[in-house]
């Protein structure tokens, strides 16, 4: 229903003469990656409309970003599938939480695959993972606290990764919206998992809470748009750090994920 609305919006914008390029209109629709929706776009009609392109990333640039996201989603979806199937790892009371998270990560994989294909790209295959990271987390699927800690790490890193990637999707219409819509879901997951660990749902300063500090590097930033926010608010400084989640560059994210990726 949502996808149909987007298509309708994109279509009516064409009809009323806004200057969307064909490619941009396509990406608006394709962001939701639904083949049924794709079939509904009247390409011939859109072709006939003026083609004053707005600035935006090329399809190949979008595919690069989405394949990066897909790699992270493979990591997360594989992790939760293994966790959910591990014997007596997740307490019965917490199963529904991880089933919900797993459902979303699996859906993200499928959505990204379809979207990448729709944009003319090739979705990356699932890497092979080693969630012990070469033995560092050897009890990850037998000790619930370790499992929770790595889940926390992957979710908070996921939030930072999508945030870092968003500017490179500027001008990509519904693909950007879809990325933002995934981003906030990762944040909901992160909040819940952090609270299962007995932490706050939000990130105070750059506290790593037993995880590699690189995951939280820069989270203690209090300067936004060149404003030192601590000087314009009565809220405590720690709240200022909590109130803004910080992005991470693709290279930093891959460095964090690297130890878990075998090939």
């Amino acid at each position, binding site marked *: *229903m*949502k996808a149909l*609305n987007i298509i309708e919006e994109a279509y009516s914008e064409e009809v009323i003469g806004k200057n969307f390029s064909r490619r941009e209109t396509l990406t608006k629709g394709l962001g*939701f*990656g639904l083949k049924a929706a794709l079939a509904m776009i009247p390409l011939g009609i859109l072709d006939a409309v003026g083609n004053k392109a707005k600035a935006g990333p090329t399809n190949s640039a979008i595919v690069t970003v989405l394949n990066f996201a897909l790699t992270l989603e493979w990591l997360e979806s594989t992790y939760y599938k293994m966790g959910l199937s591990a014997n007596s790892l997740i307490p019965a009371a*917490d199963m*529904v*939480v991880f*089933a*919900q*998270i797993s*459902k*979303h*990560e*699996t*859906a*993200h994989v499928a*959505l990204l695959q379809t979207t990448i294909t729709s944009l003319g790209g090739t979705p990356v295959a699932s890497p092979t993972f080693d969630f012990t990271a070469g033995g560092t987390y050897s009890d990850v699927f037998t000790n619930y606290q370790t499992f929770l800690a790595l889940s926390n790490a992957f979710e908070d890193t996921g*939030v930072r990764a*999508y*945030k870092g990637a*968003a*500017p490179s999707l*500027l001008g*990509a219409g*519904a693909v*950007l*919206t*879809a990325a*933002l*819509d*995934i*981003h*906030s*879901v*990762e*944040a*909901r*997951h*992160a*909040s*819940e998992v952090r*609270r299962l660990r007995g932490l706050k*749902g*939000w990130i105070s300063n750059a506290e790593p809470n037993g995880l590699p500090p690189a995951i939280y590097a820069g989270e203690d930033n209090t300067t*936004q*748009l060149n*404003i030192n*926010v601590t000087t*314009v*608010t*009565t*809220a405590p400084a720690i*709240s*200022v750090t*909590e*109130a*803004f*989640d910080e*992005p991470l560059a693709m290279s930093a994210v891959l460095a964090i994920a690297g130890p878990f990726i075998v090939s």
Partner: protein
Amino acid sequence: MKEQKLHNYFQEVLHAPVGRKGFLKYTAFSGAAVMLGLSSCKKDHGSGGSTGTTIDVGSGDTGILNFAYALEQLEAAFYIKVNASFYTNATTAEQAILSDIMNHEITHRDFFKSALGSGAIGTLQFNFSSVDFTSRTSVLATAKALEDTGVSAYNGAGQYITSSDYLTVAGKIVSVEARHAAAIRDLINPLSADFAGDDVVSASTGLDFSRTPNSTTGGPSIVATANTFLTTKISATQLP
């Protein structure tokens, strides 16, 4: 469908103390205020009637930031009131969460005011008479609705932002709103799927909800919904 559910939260929240008639009156009025804003677009932003003026948030990136500023003002004002006198039997843990969230929303509000500088809309006046601040149910349901609305508003506005820096800062804020939404939802229904429930996150795509300021798909727009809490009404006639 999800919009309808979101709308229902507000209806639940507003229903109890004000009554259905009262809610309809609120909605009808805010609808009228938006209409007024539309008809006065690009002239002055005219009077919204006897209860005060309608403030239009403006156009482009500034309009989006002002729209966000209005929502953050609303959230901050709500949590300040929640924290001034907690609902009956609020636990220490709940108070800590609600206090943290208040400070985050105050931070967001003050940040936007500073970032917008002379382009900022004024300080809005609020009417929370529809919320029973002594009731855990009423307070948390309102908090849930405000947080989910905030998430959907930032998500929906993102693609209309032209500045990369503004997009990033909106991203920095929306994920914190999503963290709030999950925590509030977990307080209401602990250890359930509700922290990222199927009512806000599509079970088939795993996508959160996004909405433009004036979209009325499935229920009143975010602008109209915000206006149910505003004495000073806002409009976003130059935004989608």
